C-alpha cells in the first residue's frame, strides 16, 4: 500500500486551473520532487497536501486513510517554507523545541530528542542564537530541525534552498538528502531547479500548467523524457523536425567530425568551463542546433562561419509519440532567421 496517495486533485482559482486531475502516490520513505516552472501549480499542490489550501475535487490518503478534510494541525506533517518562517523572537533552540513543549512527553525523552535533532542538523554551536544572527544555511537547518522535531509522518519542503547562494545550496542538498535517508521519512519537495530535483529525488513529478507531464526516476526523466516539454525543461535539447515526426537529442550526445556526417556551419561558440557550447546551423535543414564538446577536446580550429560535420547517434535519439506539447511551446530555434540573413546570404 502506498504511504501517501494523491487522487485526482483539481483546484481552480476563478477560471484558471491551478491543478487539473493530479494523481500520484508515494512509497514509505520515498523522496519525491515536484518540479516545474513557476505557476505550474506545484506549490498549490504542496499546500493542499499540507491542508493549507482546499482542493475543489479529489482526495488525499495517508496510509489508506482519507485526510482530505482533516485540519492541518492533525495531519502530522513537518514543513519548511521558502522563507523558513522562523520565529524571530526565539533562539534556534526555542524555535525547534516550541512544538515539543506542547506535547506531553517526559523531560528525559524530550532532552534525548533535542540532542538527537541538534546532532543530525549540526547546529550545536548556534543553539542560543536568534534567527537574525544565523547565516542563511543555518536558518535553513533550524527550519528543517523544527519541521522534524515532532516525528512527523511526512515532510514537506517548499523551495527550501532557493534563498541560498550556489555553494551553500550544493552543500545543503546533500545534507537534506542524508538526513532524509537517515530518518527514512517520506518527503515531498517543491522546486523549480531541475538540477536540485535530479540530484536529490528518488522520483520526480514534472508539472506544467497544473498537469503532470511525467513521473519517473531522475535518469529516465533526463534520458527518456515523455514529451517535448519535459525534454526542454530538464537539461538542454535539440528538436529536429523530420516530416511529421519530432525527434530530439541532447547537445552532449552529438558527435562532431571534420569530414563525415551532416554539414553544418558554426554560428556561435561559447566557453562554459567544463565544455564548449557550439551553436551550429544545419545547412540543408534550415535549422540551428546546440552541440556540447568537453573543453579537454581541442576545438581551437572551429571559428565562426567555419564548416563542420555532425553525427547524431541513433541510440541517443529521442522520438516522441505525442507531439501535442511541441506545437504549444514553439521549441524551434528562434534565431535561425537572423542567421540566414547574416551568414548564409554572405
Amino acid at each position, binding site marked *: 500500500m502506498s504511504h501517501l496517495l494523491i487522487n485526482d486533485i483539481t483546484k481552480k482559482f476563478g477560471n484558471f486551473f491551478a491543478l487539473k486531475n493530479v494523481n500520484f502516490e508515494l512509497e514509505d520513505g520515498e523522496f519525491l520532487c515536484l518540479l516545474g516552472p513557476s505557476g505550474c501549480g506545484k506549490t498549490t499542490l504542496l499546500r493542499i497536501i*499540507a*491542508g493549507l489550501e*482546499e482542493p475543489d475535487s479529489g482526495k488525499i490518503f495517508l496510509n489508506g486513510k482519507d485526510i482530505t478534510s482533516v*485540519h*492541518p494541525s492533525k495531519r502530522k506533517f513537518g514543513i519548511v517554507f521558502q*522563507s523558513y518562517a522562523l520565529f524571530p*523572537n526565539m533562539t534556534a533552540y526555542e524555535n525547534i523545541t516550541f*512544538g515539543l513543549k506542547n506535547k506531553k512527553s517526559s523531560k528525559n525523552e524530550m532532552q534525548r530528542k533535542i540532542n538527537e535533532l541538534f546532532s543530525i542538523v549540526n547546529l550545536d554551536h548556534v543553539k542560543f542564537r536568534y534567527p537574525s*544572527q544565523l547565516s542563511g544555511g543555518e536558518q535553513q537547518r533550524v527550519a528543517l530541525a523544527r519541521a522534524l522535531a515532532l516525528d512527523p509522518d511526512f515532510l514537506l519542503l517548499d523551495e527550501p534552498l532557493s534563498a541560498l547562494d550556489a555553494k551553500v545550496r550544493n552543500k545543503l542538498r546533500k545534507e537534506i538528502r542524508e538526513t532524509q535517508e537517515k530518518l527514512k521519512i517520506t518527503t515531498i519537495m517543491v522546486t523549480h531547479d531541475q538540477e536540485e530535483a535530479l540530484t536529490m529525488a528518488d522520483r520526480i513529478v514534472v508539472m506544467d500548467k497544473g498537469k503532470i507531464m511525467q513521473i519517473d526516476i531522475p535518469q529516465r526523466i533526463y534520458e527518456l523524457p515523455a514529451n517535448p516539454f519535459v525534454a526542454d525543461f530538464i537539461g538542454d535539447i535539440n528538436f529536429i523536425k523530420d516530416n511529421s515526426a519530432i525527434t530530439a537529442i541532447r547537445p552532449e550526445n552529438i558527435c562532431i567530425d571534420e569530414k563525415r556526417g551532416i554539414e553544418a556551419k558554426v554560428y556561435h561558440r561559447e566557453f562554459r568551463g567544463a565544455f564548449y557550447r557550439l551553436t551550429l546551423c544545419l545547412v540543408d535543414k534550415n535549422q540551428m542546433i546546440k552541440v556540447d564538446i568537453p573543453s579537454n577536446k581541442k576545438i581551437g580550429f572551429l571559428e565562426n562561419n567555419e564548416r563542420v560535420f555532425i553525427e547524431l547517434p541513433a541510440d541517443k535519439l529521442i522520438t516522441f509519440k505525442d507531439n501535442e506539447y511541441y506545437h504549444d511551446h514553439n521549441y524551434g530555434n528562434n534565431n535561425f532567421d537572423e542567421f540566414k540573413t547574416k551568414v548564409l546570404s554572405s
Partner: protein
Amino acid sequence: MTTFNNRISKLSPGNLFQKILIVIFLLFLVISIILPLCSLFVEAFHDKSGSFTGIDNFYYYFSNPALSQSVNNTLFISFMTTIISVLLAFFYAYSLTRVKIKWKTFFKYVALLPLFAPTMLQGISLVYLFGNKGIFTSLGIDINLYGAVGIIISEILYTFPQAYLILLVAFEITDYRLYEAAETLGAGRIKQFIRITVPSVKYGLLSAIFVCFTLSFTDFGAPKVVGGDYNVLATDIYKQIVGQQNFSMGAVVGIILLLPALVSFTVDRITTRKQSSFLSSKSIPFQFKKKPADNLFFFYCFVISVIILIFFLVAIFASLVKIWPYNLKLTFSHYIFKTVSSSGIKPYINSIIVSFVSSVVGTVLIFSSAYLIEKLKSMKIIRQLSYFISIIPLALPGLIIGISYIMFFNRLNFNFFGFTIPNIFNFIYGTIIILVLANIIHFYSVPFITANTALKKIEREFENVSYSMSIPVYKTFLKVTVPLSITAIMENLMYIFVNSMTTVSAVIFLYTSQLKLASIAVIHMEEGGSIASAAAMANLIVLTNVAVRIIYEIILKKIRRKTDAWQKR
C-alpha cells in the same frame, strides 16, 4: 468552498473560536459605531415629538440666520486656522528635516507639547495674556480676544502639532538622488524647493490641510473658553442638546459637522495609498549641507517653540500665584479644588481610571480584532466589513460620537414599523462603561491602523507553521505575534491614554455628576470663573500625560534593548 470550510472548522476548535470571535467583534463595531450613527441620522429627520419630518429640520436650520450664522463663523475659523497652521508647520517640519540646525531634539518635543493638553489650556493662557485682565491688555494692547481671534489662535496651537507630524513624515520620505541630480543640472536652492521639495510632500500637505480643517471645524474646547458670543457649530450642538434638549436640531448640526470630516477621511484614504509608493529601496536619505540661510530657519523654529512654551508656562505660572496679575505670590491653593468645586480632585482620579481602562481594554480589543482581520483565512466578507467599520471613527468628531451615543444608548426601546424592541444596551448609559466605550471608539482607528501595519509585516506562514507543529493558534499569537508587535501595542496604549485624558468633546454629553472627568471639570471651573483652578486642572492633565509619555519612552528603551538581538533585519 463554504462547505469545505465548515468541514475543516468542525475538526479544529481553535479555528471555530476565532470565527466566533471575529463575528463578536463585528457585532461590537456595529453596536458601538453603526447603530448610534443611524440613530443620529434618524433623529435629524424627525421632530421633537418623534414624527417624521423629512428635511424640515435642515430647512428650519438654514432659514434661521441666528443658527446658520454659525456655519459661516465655523468656516471662517477653519479656513484661517488651516492656512496659518499648515504654513507654520510646513516650514517648521522643513527646518527640522531639510536644514542643518541646532537644538533639533528640543524643537521636536516642544512642537508635540500641545498634544498632551486639552484645547481649553491654550484658551486659558490666552485669557491670561490678552483677556480682560491679561498682561498685554493691561499694557494697552487689546487684540479683541473673545471671539474669532481667540478661537483662531487657540486652534492654531491645537492643530499645529498634527500638521507638523504629518508633514514631518512627508518630508522624511525623500530620495536624495533627486537633489543630487538637480545639483548636477545647476538648479539653485529655491528652484530645488519649488520643483522637488514641494511636489514630493504634496500628499502630506493635502492631508495636513484636511486634518487641520476638520479638527478646527469640530473643536469644542477652545470656542467654549474664548469664543464669547461668537457662535460656532461645536458650541451650538452643546447648547441645542445640553441647554435646550433639542435633539433633532442637535442632530442636524451634527450632520453638518460631519461633512468636512467625511471629505477629509476620503482624501486621507487616497493619499496614504499614494504616498507610500514614492520611496524605493534604492532611495538615499537626505544629506545635510551647510547653507547660508540656515540661521534664519533656526530663528524661525526658536520663535515658534518659545511661543508654544509661553502658553504652557503662563498656564503653570498663573495656576501657582494668588491672583493673576495683581498678586503674584506663589501658592498651591488653586490645586485644592474642593474650594471651588464640590467634586474636588475626584474628576482627575476619574479621568485617570477612565483613560487607563480605555487604553488597556481598547488596545486588547483593537489588536485582537486587527489580528483576526489580517490573519484569518476564511470569512472574507466579514473581515472586509470589519476593516471598513474599523476606520470609520477616523471621520467621526468626538461631538458626533457623544450625541449619537445619547441618542442610541439613552433610548429605552426602538420602534420599527410598529414593533417595539427594548434597548438591551441601555444599561450602560450613565455608567463608566459608556465613557470607556466612547473613548475607545473615538480613538479606535489610529491604533487599528498601527496594529494592522505591524501585523502586515509579520510573516504570513507563522500560523501555518504552528499548524504543522500542532501548536494551538492562541499560543502562537501570545508567544510570537504579540512579542513581535510589542512596540505597536505600547504605542496604542499610550495613544489612547493620552487622548482620553485630554478629550472633552465626546464625553461631555455622557458623563454624570458622579463620573465627572478632569477635562470637563476644567470647563466647569472656567465657566464658574475659577480660571486659575481650571488652569491648575489642565496642568495636571498635561503633567500626567507627559509623565506617561516619559514612562512609555523608558519602557520602550528597555524593550528595545531586549529585542535588539532579533530585530536587526
